[in-house]
């Protein structure tokens, strides 16, 4: 257990560092860190995995194996409209579980999910899927990620 807390602490510090000073609402650095991390991580994680058949299979891999390796749990729900929109729901999102649920805390929730948005986007981008990922927190510690695949 003690090893897992290290990642949580590091993440919290990165969030503080990136948003320090007058950059309080600028999540681009956090998102970028997530992107490069996801990009590199997926290269390693898909090493011994057979080739993905289609987009859905790729997203499923993100929701199961990829999520487990980072957050020690799978996502709770994955929904899609089969037209490139995916909604990933995690009912106990790791970076939010240590925050007390409440109105005031909810205001600060977006900064703890920005890294993950980038992470997912980076991983998908390296697998050949260009997307935009946004997060939505309605009630701590639950979190929804909207993945919108851009088809060009």
């Amino acid at each position, binding site marked *: 257990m003690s090893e897992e807390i290290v990642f949580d602490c590091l993440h919290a510090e990165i969030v503080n560092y990136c948003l320090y000073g007058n950059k309080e609402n600028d999540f681009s650095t956090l998102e970028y860190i997530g992107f*490069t991390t996801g*990009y*590199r991580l*997926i*290269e*390693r994680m*898909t*090493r011994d*995995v*057979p*080739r*993905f*058949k*289609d987009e859905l299979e790729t997203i499923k891999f993100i929701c199961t194996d990829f999520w487990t390796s980072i957050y020690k749990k799978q996502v709770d729900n994955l929904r899609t409209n089969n037209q490139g929109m995916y909604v990933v729901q995690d009912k106990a999102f790791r970076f939010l579980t240590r925050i007390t649920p409440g109105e005031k805390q909810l205001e600060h929730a977006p900064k703890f999910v920005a890294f993950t948005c980038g992470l997912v986007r980076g991983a998908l981008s*390296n*697998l*050949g899927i260009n997307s935009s990922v946004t997060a939505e927190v309605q009630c701590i510690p639950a979190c929804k990620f909207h993945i919108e695949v851009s088809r060009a």
Partner: protein
Amino acid sequence: MAVCVAVIGKDNSPLYLSTTDMDKELELQYRVHAALDVIEEKCQVGVKGTPETKELYLGLLYATETHKIYGFVTNTKVKLILVIDSGNIALRENEVRAMFRNLHILYTDAVCNPFFLPGEQLISKKFDRAVQKLMSGNI
């Protein structure tokens, strides 16, 4: 063992190329480029042989009088290509497979280097040394 190792990016741009014989580098580059068409053909979805297409290792792409060209495509669409001297008949299929596995591990390690920028050419002394070792066959 191998005379040429090439890493080709997802947009078919060359990321890395190394040969044992500098004089033949251009000729070997042609071989590698010719292989890209074969790879594209093999990776098309929905065409015959479903169990094979699921594997990252693509097997022998084509052979010429002097060389045999083998291919491997990672999940991230990065192509690894090995050119092997046809005269080397002792080399077995599973040895080629093992070489690709090692090369893939080397590549992922190189990508995880924070100084490597995705999509850029792969310039790394460590990777270079390991590939030279791989080509000479003592890994």
